[in-house]
């Protein structure tokens, strides 16, 4: 299995640990991730609320690069997934929109053909590698580790567009976490947004939203697991800047899966996590 790796903006620049652990996990599960030269920002989910035509063209340009590579896209960010997936499906279905976008893209020597799929890391692991195959790779399962899974928004919503998991009661990412032997625990307001998009507008709002969730999580779980760089940063930074740090480690999904598959903390760049996650190791049985 070979995919075009869409890095987006935040992961490669601010969360190299997420990228490094994803690449290591991919190797371990037999997936080849190929870098996309010339791919930039997906456009951000907010560009759609500023100008539809530009948002569509900027997203389509990135998709075209994967089409030219002949590979489906894997994103690491929920936001990139929503933007690229939405644009891809819309352009595949709407011939007029496709024609309009291709007129713009002709100026930069690309043409949207509609030949690839857009997947998020979570979706790729579940749909293409498969839970059973992943389970077989678990060598050092966890025992008694309680995990608060934060699925985030743009992996599952808007559900009529993304068509992945239940938008209000998601369970797929939890199933992925549970192959490691850890328990994905229920907790209040599990699907609440991290607040990240409001950070640039009023900087005190998002940390309040994020911190409140971590404080709830602390009562039910040992760690929090995310699959989006923006959610990860919100939950980590809101704790570090809080008057009283709840000290709940936030772990990237590929880090947790990688540990269970026998990769080391160094392999998974866990030294990059700002809240020491090493207590997870106490729950490993072998």
């Amino acid at each position, binding site marked *: 299995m070979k995919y075009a790796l869409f*890095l*987006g*903006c*935040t992961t*490669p*620049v*601010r969360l*190299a*640990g997420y*990228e*490094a652990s994803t*690449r290591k996990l991919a190797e371990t599960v037999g997936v080849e991730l190929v*870098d*996309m*030269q*010339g*791919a*930039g*920002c997906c*456009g*951000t989910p*907010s*560009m*759609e*609320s*500023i*100008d*539809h035509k*530009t948002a569509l*063209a*900027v997203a389509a*340009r990135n998709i075209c*690069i994967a089409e030219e590579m002949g590979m489906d896209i894997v994103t690491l960010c929920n936001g990139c997934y929503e933007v690229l997936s939405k644009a891809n499906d819309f352009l595949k279905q709407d011939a007029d929109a496709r024609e309009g976008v291709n007129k*713009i*893209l002709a*100026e*930069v020597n*690309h043409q949207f053909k509609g030949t690839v799929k857009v997947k998020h890391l979570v979706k790729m692991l579940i749909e293409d590698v498969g839970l059973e195959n992943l389970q077989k790779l678990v060598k050092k399962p966890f025992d008694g580790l309680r995990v608060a899974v934060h699925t985030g*928004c*743009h992996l599952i*919503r*808007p559900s009529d567009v993304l068509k992945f998991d239940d*938008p*209000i009661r998601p369970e797929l990412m939890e199933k992925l976490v549970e192959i490691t032997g850890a328990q994905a625990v229920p907790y209040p307001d599990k*699907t*609440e*947004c991290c*607040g*990240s*998009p*409001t950070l*640039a*507008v*009023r900087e005190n*709002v*998002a940390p*309040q*939203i994020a911190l409140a969730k971590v404080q709830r999580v602390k009562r039910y779980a040992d760690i929090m697991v995310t699959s989006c760089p923006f959610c990860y940063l919100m939950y980590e930074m809101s704790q570090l800047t809080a008057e009283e740090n709840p000290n709940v480690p936030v772990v990237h999904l590929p880090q947790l899966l990688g540990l269970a598959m026998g990769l080391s903390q160094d392999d998974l*760049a866990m030294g*990059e996590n700002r809240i020491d996650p090493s207590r997870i190791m106490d729950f490993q049985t072998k």
Partner: protein
Amino acid sequence: MPEDSEKEVGETKEQRTKTYGSDPSNQESPSKQGSEAILRMADMDPNLKYELSKIPGAEKLLLCLQCGTCTGDCPVSSRVPEFSPRTIAKMAALGMKDALFTGDLLWLCAQCYTCYEECPEDVKPSEIISALRKMAVKEGHIHPAYKSQMELIGTLGRLYDVSEIQNEMRAELGLPPVPDSGVNEVKKIMKRTGLDKLTQIDLSKEG
């Protein structure tokens, strides 16, 4: 006689205008405006609801029952009382264009799509807010944070500049340098669609 009847209702038209009409402090909070200020038909734009309903996603604006499911489930509303998707839908239906387009109200939406999923009438409040943003941008009201985001994407191809130090740190983790962002193509697209003029950003600087 007319003077007496004016007195009976408590305040004159002039006093009312003085107290509520042109005071910008009343424009800041829509909830305050709804409960304490007098809304005058002359200040409303009755066409706003029709124009808005033409934008994809916002077609069902006028089906809103004002049930409040959206606001009840909104992660922002519970921390920022003046931000309420229900109130925004009502303000849009009433045509309160100035109160909607100025300030940061529309830009507080986290676009988490919870209201989109939960609305019993499928009104899609998040899409109404997105459509209102598009209209506001066309009239020159883009939030400065979003304006600078667009400028970063247009001049760097991504939201961040990549320094040598970052690539060295990546190398220590065994990662290749951050790939080229294709900024020149992004810039051409933005100029072609007119995003630079629409959002008043300067794409001439080099990334």
